[in-house]
């Protein structure tokens, strides 16, 4: 019974809870007992909120008993990446500098989940401050890939992807700054959806790079992800970059098909170092779209190779600024020091991990007086050219199909240098720089058994077309569970 619920998915769980086939409390208990049994080996959760989850589930059941509409996520047991703040529930961004921090407020996305009847099970592991591509940069503990525990789940939303893959949450929220939802989704064989920049409020998303960060869902199916995104999307006055557009009607797009849709394959994504099996799987996804009536053609995104260097100026610069608030004065870790200057420098040296320090250093370097034009401004200009590439491609095609990652999940400890690690995001960064929506969907497995993901990139605000294509690919490849549900 409990395993069956764990893999039933968001839409199905909400249906059953609303139809009183199962109580929200039973759903919550099923997930909580699976987490208690299996998460020790996987490390997807940083905090499990047993009491809070049961109380939320009971409230949903009470609402249903009282005849109230329990919302589109009634009793759906979800979990949230630790960079998204939750009122009353410890939130650390997987960093020592925020050890024990209990936020006095909810992120807008979390508040919307709760209002829609979702039950929050706890906080998910990730790379510290979302800086990483493997979840190896968590200050607290490693997170493992449910398909092969010697491999990384991807990052930075590694816990968010692994928990959904292993049936430890029906769906989760992650954040995607340079691929942090889509890359781990691909590594763990689940769906990951990075919406258009501004679609989902960043209020309560602990900032990494403000102009790139977006919250989005990870789920077992395109339909599940669509349901969650519809709930969390929409204008929020507290985020000045949130877009004043109604939430997109995504569930309606699921069955719309792709007949007549033009799909572009970006040439540059297949030229460099890409694993042959990954390339073949993406082409197979293209064939599935063609079989469903889409038209396939090659497009060019000529500035693709500058996405990585542009990203590694913009993201660290914004991060260095965003992380200035961690000073040991108002919250979080403080080093013992008699003098204020020492207090700052030692607090930050003790509290931040090596990857975070590295990015703060790069970002500080790039923003120094006299360096701004050559670095940050230049990168923002190149970014404009990357966006222009997409604009031009979208004059020819409706959606772009590309690999999510160059390879399937790599081994823990495999990426030796920072640049080796940064290269693993080479296909996902441009989407963030351009601000467009990106959906990662599973497209089968490599001979090793590891999942492979493809991503669909759409026009700004056109999540619906991306969902149409995603649903068709999903129908062709299906959704798979890791061996023994990741519990082996």
């Amino acid at each position, binding site marked *: 019974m409990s395993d069956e619920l764990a893999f039933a998915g968001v839409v199905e769980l909400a249906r059953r809870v609303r139809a009183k086939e199962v109580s929200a409390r039973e759903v919550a208990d099923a997930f909580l007992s699976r987490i208690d049994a299996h998460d020790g080996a996987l490390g997807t959760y940083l905090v499990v909120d047993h009491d809070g989850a049961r109380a939320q589930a009971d409230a949903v059941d009470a609402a249903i008993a009282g005849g109230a509409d329990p919302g589109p996520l009634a009793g759906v047991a979800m979990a949230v990446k630790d960079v998204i703040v939750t009122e009353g529930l410890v939130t650390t961004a997987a960093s020592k500098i925020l050890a024990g*921090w*209990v936020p*006095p407020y909810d992120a807008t996305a979390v508040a919307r989940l709760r209002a829609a009847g979702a039950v929050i099970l706890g906080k998910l592991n990730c790379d510290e401050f979302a800086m990483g591509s493997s979840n190896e940069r968590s200050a607290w503990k490693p997170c493992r890939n449910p398909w092969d525990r010697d491999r990384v789940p991807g990052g930075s939303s590694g816990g968010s992807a692994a928990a959904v893959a292993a049936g430890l949450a029906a769906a989760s929220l992650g954040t995607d700054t340079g691929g942090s939802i889509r890359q781990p989704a691909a590594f763990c064989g689940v769906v990951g959806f990075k919406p*258009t*920049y*501004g679609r989902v409020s960043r209020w309560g998303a602990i900032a990494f790079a403000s*102009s*790139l960060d977006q919250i989005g869902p990870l789920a077992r199916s395109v339909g599940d992800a669509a349901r969650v995104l519809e709930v969390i999307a929409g204008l929020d*006055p507290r985020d*000045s970059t949130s*877009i*004043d557009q109604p939430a997109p009607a995504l569930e309606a797009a699921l069955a719309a098909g792709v007949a007549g849709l033009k799909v572009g394959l970006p040439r540059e994504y297949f030229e460099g170092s890409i694993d042959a099996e990954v390339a073949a799987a993406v082409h197979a996804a293209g064939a599935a779209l063609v079989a469903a009536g889409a038209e396939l053609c090659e497009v060019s995104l000529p*500035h693709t190779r*500058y996405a*990585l*260097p*542009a990203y*590694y*100026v913009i993201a660290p610069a914004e991060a260095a600024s965003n992380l200035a608030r961690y000073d*040991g*004065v108002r919250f*979080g870790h*403080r080093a013992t020091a*008699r*003098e*204020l*200057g*020492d*207090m700052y*420098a*030692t607090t*930050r*040296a003790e509290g*931040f991990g090596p990857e975070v*320090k*590295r990015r*703060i*250093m*790069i970002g*500080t*370097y790039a923003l*120094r007086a006299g360096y701004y034009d050559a*670095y940050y*401004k*230049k*990168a*923002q*200009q*190149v*970014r*404009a*050219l990357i966006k222009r590439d997409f604009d031009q491609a979208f004059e020819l095609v409706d959606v772009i199909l590309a690999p999510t990652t160059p390879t399937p999940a790599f081994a823990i400890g495999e990426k030796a*240098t*920072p*640049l080796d690690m940064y290269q693993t995001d080479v296909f996902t960064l441009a989407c*963030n*720089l351009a*601000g*467009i929506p990106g959906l990662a969907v599973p497209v089968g497995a490599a001979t090793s058994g590891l999942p492979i993901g493809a991503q669909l990139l759409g026009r700004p*605000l056109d999540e619906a077309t991306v969902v149409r294509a995603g649903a068709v690919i999903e129908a062709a490849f299906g959704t798979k569970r890791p061996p023994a549900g990741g519990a082996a």
Partner: protein
Amino acid sequence: MVLTREEVAEIAQLARLALGDAELEVLRTELAAILDHVAALQEVETTGVEPMTHAVPTMLRLRPDTVAASLPVEVALADAPAAKDGCFEVPAIIKAAT
């Protein structure tokens, strides 16, 4: 690209990161490698290109001048490493800055 130790130390000071000698040395080579990689940006002709600061063109939305409840003082100070008399407490700000 060559970064000097002094330069790295200066950046660390600006960023308020107390770094040991070994850490400084590692960062010196790592930063240099990343900056070398990033130097590829200089190949791109960007004359006249407006820097992109927001992914979707948006104008600033303005908030009406209305007041919402403040956090209670005890909530504001709840996670403070040190607090006194309703204030956040820090080591004395050095005399020269007062």
